[in-house]
């Protein structure tokens, strides 16, 4: 019997269902620990300095990997936050859409209000699109190329992707 008395207040205050989720977390951790524990009993353990090095295709690793990397990833994360919040706002609206649509005096207003909200955000998407921030390889702004070395200018035109 698996009795979890300390879950009592949590489950009763969340009408049971989120208590189930909490039990899922616990069971997941137990199974993960169990699998790792069994593996620990069976597997060999012969660590050596060469084995513990960072894998870099057989070469000795050069420097740390904890470095700055392409700013593009941060931009994607920023766009994501904006649009994910938009989607989160859409969910409650979608749930009540049909029931509110039938309310006299509201009707299509429910729909068009959300369309205006989406329109504003789509304008934002159109803006970053026009600015070129959605391109993985962003062309640099119209920077005048130096006249002397055309070959170097051609190389500088595009920022290499990762």
């Amino acid at each position, binding site marked *: 019997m698996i009795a979890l008395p300390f879950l009592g207040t949590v489950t009763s205050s969340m009408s049971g269902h989120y208590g189930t989720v909490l*039990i899922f977390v616990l069971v997941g951790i137990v199974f993960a620990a169990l699998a790792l524990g069994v593996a620990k009993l069976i597997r*060999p353990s012969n660590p050596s300095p060469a084995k*513990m090095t960072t894998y870099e295709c057989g070469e000795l*690793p050069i420097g740390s990997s904890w470095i700055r990397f392409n700013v593009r990833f941060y931009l*994607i994360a920023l766009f994501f936050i904006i649009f994910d919040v938009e989607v989160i706002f859409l969910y409650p609206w979608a749930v009540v859409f049909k029931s509110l649509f039938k309310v006299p005096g509201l009707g299509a207003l429910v729909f068009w209000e959300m369309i205006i909200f989406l329109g504003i955000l789509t304008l934002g998407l159109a803006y970053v699109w026009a600015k070129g921030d*959605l391109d993985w390889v962003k062309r640099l702004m119209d920077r005048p190329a130096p006249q002397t070395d055309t070959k170097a200018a051609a190389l500088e035109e595009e920022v290499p992707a990762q």
Partner: protein
Amino acid sequence: MDALIALIQNAPGAANMSAQALHNTAAALMATLMFTVMALCAIVFTWMERKVAGFLQNRYGPMRTGRWHGWAQAVADMLKILGKEDIIPAEADKGLFVFAPILVLLGSLLAWAAIPWAPGFVAADLDLGLFYIFAVSSLVIIGILMAGWSSNNKWALYGAARGAAQMVSYEIPLALATIPVIMYTGSLNTQDIVIAQQGGLANWYIFRDPFLFVAFWMYFIASIAETNRGPFDMPETESELVAGYHTEYSGMRFAFFFLSEYANLFLVSLIAVMVFLGGWWAPLPLLDVIPPALTFIIKGVMMVFFNMWVRWTLPRVRVDQLMHLCWKVMIPIALICVLGSGIIQMVRG
């Protein structure tokens, strides 16, 4: 869940259990069952993947282990992985390195709590069901980022950064594609979504209106990207990034990533079935004899097969093409689907 509680109540020695203890026991049993399903997913689908890949490439795939079409290949792999040495690089951030696979595993397991297998057979009957599934499956992204960063390996870091960028980007069309369905249903509860599709093929959400048909394909493409599978397997492009974010992982910890990957494959397929393809309802009245849970699983496995078919047919896309497809093609189309489906629902009243 209620049936399970009643079953435990009638078990010997359980007569004087409190309602709370009964509920917790049933929940723990459900969680164990879901974990078993996850582990089975990894075993069955790795074998299936290799066979499908084999036949698509005009060869047999595994044939030896277990005699009959190499059915025991995945089991043998699992046993072998159990005995593999666990190597944690000296340079790695040990705490995060150890925690990451568990987080990825938890993210996959938690989402299973709200999957409606049959009428009334769902571990956590949440009012926010679908929203909850999308929310907890985002834990996988954090786990992947954590794994890549803590490995202190250049390949792992690239793979993790790419994976996170890809998965957060494709989460938007994925979630947007389900909005019209929620507008039709008026509920986020996973059981309500399935119940609303009762009454044969024509009532499945995919065939309700043309925009939902498009939304289904948006969901399908985004779900392939979410599970990091070909043609969108940027996070672990084996020809350029070795193995991506799990380059430094070995043994059981690697198995956790692997397990989570195949569990997520089945999960997104089941969500596609639940949201668009009628859940546990059979397509024809003739097929109503099949138990609902079995119908649900058969549909899910068919979606998994479709996923594999796509993976082994199409070549991998480039990173810039991937981002182009998401932000400039799929998000606008998904928004149009919401708009169009909303207008159709208003016209129909």
